[in-house]
């Protein structure tokens, strides 16, 4: 009888151990959700729709040419639309591609994230399409990519702007 009781007690103890582990696992899980939400702010929302919809132009991928340029976003109060401009370092094919997925990108979150009450100042979002293998041509001393990051139609942006975290896509080309 005593033995049985002992066994029973032991079992009870085991059960509560299991429960404890379960609680611990749940706690860790909740913590990870809260934590990932923290890192997963508006920025990655825009970033994930960018990564999800963008197809890097095949010609650029084949030629191993990465893309580095600035997307200038300006809100038009009258039409309630976002006007996009591309810095002079953007390849025409890449401009075409971004315009194709334009409606999939929700820029409202950017304004919210930056706590902008008025939407009168342009937002500069760097765009980086990184390639695993880059052609030598891209790093040629005569390349104008880095000089044209803030040039739009030949003139550099000069004035108040908001900068936002870059939109990044890494393409494994071979």
């Amino acid at each position, binding site marked *: 009888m005593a033995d049985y009781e002992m066994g029973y007690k032991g079992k009870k103890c085991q059960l509560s151990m299991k429960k404890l582990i379960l609680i611990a696992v749940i706690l860790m899980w909740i913590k990870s959700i809260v934590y990932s939400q923290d890192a997963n702010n508006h920025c990655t929302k825009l970033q994930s729709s960018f990564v999800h919809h963008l197809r890097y132009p095949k010609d650029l991928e084949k030629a191993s040419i990465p893309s580095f340029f600035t997307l200038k976003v300006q809100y038009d109060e009258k039409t309630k639309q976002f006007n996009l401009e591309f810095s002079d370092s953007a390849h025409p094919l890449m401009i075409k591609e971004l315009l194709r997925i334009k409606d999939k990108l929700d820029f409202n979150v950017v304004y919210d994230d930056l706590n902008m009450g008025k939407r009168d100042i342009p937002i500069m979002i760097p765009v980086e399409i990184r390639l695993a293998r880059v052609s030598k041509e891209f790093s040629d001393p005569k390349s104008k990519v880095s000089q044209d990051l803030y040039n739009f139609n030949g003139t550099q942006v000069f004035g108040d*702007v908001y900068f936002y975290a870059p939109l990044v896509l890494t393409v494994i080309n071979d």
Partner: protein
Amino acid sequence: MKSIKFILIILYAVINSVYAQDKGKIDNFKKFENSFLRNFKYPPQLQERCIPVLTLMVISFDQYGKINSLRFSDSAYPQFIAEVQRVREDIDFESLYMDLKSLGKETEKIIIPIQIDTGVFGECESGILQFDLINLYLFDNKPLKGKFFLYKKILSKIFMARAIS
């Protein structure tokens, strides 16, 4: 006679205002840029290997026109930052401050993009790598974010010639 006088006065006013604009706007940035490039010696370790400078300088002033903070994005090499710190006192930041004040932007955080190409004659010439561009918007590994005043850039080329031996 009256109309000639009138035309002369207008001409005088126009010439004067054009001159004043010229002096006030363009000179101060040029003065700052010139003093930066005149004092800055391209770090030999970087020059020998044809490594260019590509970075964002973020600067803010206090209410007295003294530098509050001066930072460079992560694409700047330590040798470059050390060199700027070495010549910091000789760089004419005052002209920069005066220019900002004339624009009413002296209290804002200022971004000055910097690109200085380099090379050794007959040996190598620098080019911008993907790696440099990836680190351009990072400050201590965090992406640049927020309101800034985007200013003119410093763009230059500093080459070295080896002595014939």
